[in-house]
């Protein structure tokens, strides 16, 4: 059974813009928070240790994100994360979000493992790769 990492975050006053909806860069911040929580709780690799102690990182290489529906102050945003491709150093994630049953943003988001001592890509560590593989679903397509 493939795993899906799911988290929920409250949409706060600070996420919203004068149009009354979430300012879109905050969605990327929430997406990143979901990825951090996936590391810490899903992969059991504390994200702060990964960055600070191991001197590794997962910078964004590219993103393609559709903003399907808005989210508003007081909503609860559910985020689901899957892995759709695992390269030597690159990780392509499918990250979908919902407010109740309504889709919010849908993202294909590629990061790579790198070391910030040299700013060069490094292979995904074997122990992490094994855990990431549990979330791998190469045929996944977001609904709708």
């Amino acid at each position: 059974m493939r795993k899906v990492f799911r988290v929920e975050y409250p949409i706060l006053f600070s996420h919203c813009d004068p149009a009354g909806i979430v300012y879109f860069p905050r969605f990327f911040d929430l997406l990143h928070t979901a990825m951090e929580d996936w590391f810490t709780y899903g992969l059991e690799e504390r994200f702060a240790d990964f960055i600070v102690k191991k001197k590794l990182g997962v910078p964004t290489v590219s993103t393609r994100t559709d903003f399907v529906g808005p989210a508003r102050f007081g909503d609860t945003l559910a985020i689901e994360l899957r892995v759709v491709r695992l390269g030597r150093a690159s990780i392509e994630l499918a990250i979908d979000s919902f407010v109740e049953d309504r889709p919010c943003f849908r993202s294909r988001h590629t990061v790579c493992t790198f070391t910030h001592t040299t700013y060069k890509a490094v292979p995904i560590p074997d122990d992490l790769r094994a855990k990431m593989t549990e979330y791998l679903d190469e045929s996944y397509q977001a609904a709708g």
Partner: protein
Amino acid sequence: MSKTFSVERLIRFSQCDPGGIVYFVHFFDLCNGTVEDWFTEMIGMTFNEIHLVRRWGFPIVDTGCHFYRPCRLSDRLKLTLTIAKLGRSSIEFSIHGTVDGDEKFRARHKVAMISLDSYRAIPIPDDLRAKMEAYVTPHA
């Protein structure tokens, strides 16, 4: 010859992450700020006028962004905006970021004009469209 619109931004301490480079989320804020300045300076309408007075909005529809190289603290990032496609209600911007000529990122940033009262798409008014058309560069 299509027009381009450029702004320069100093990369601030607050935009960098514990890895010492710009946290990618800030690039989207920088793109939004470039669009905001373009509306003010080139289209002649501030975001206050658009959103709070006229009750229009330009929410994002989709974005695609490639990050080529990291940006660092105190870099002077030049952001250059053109329009790849101008639709009835939608504007697809092409925005790229360079530091001393070195390309850092390139984004497609598509927004659609809506009424903030109905949250439905509305056509871009002709007077605004006429000013926008100068920035259309289909292969940007």
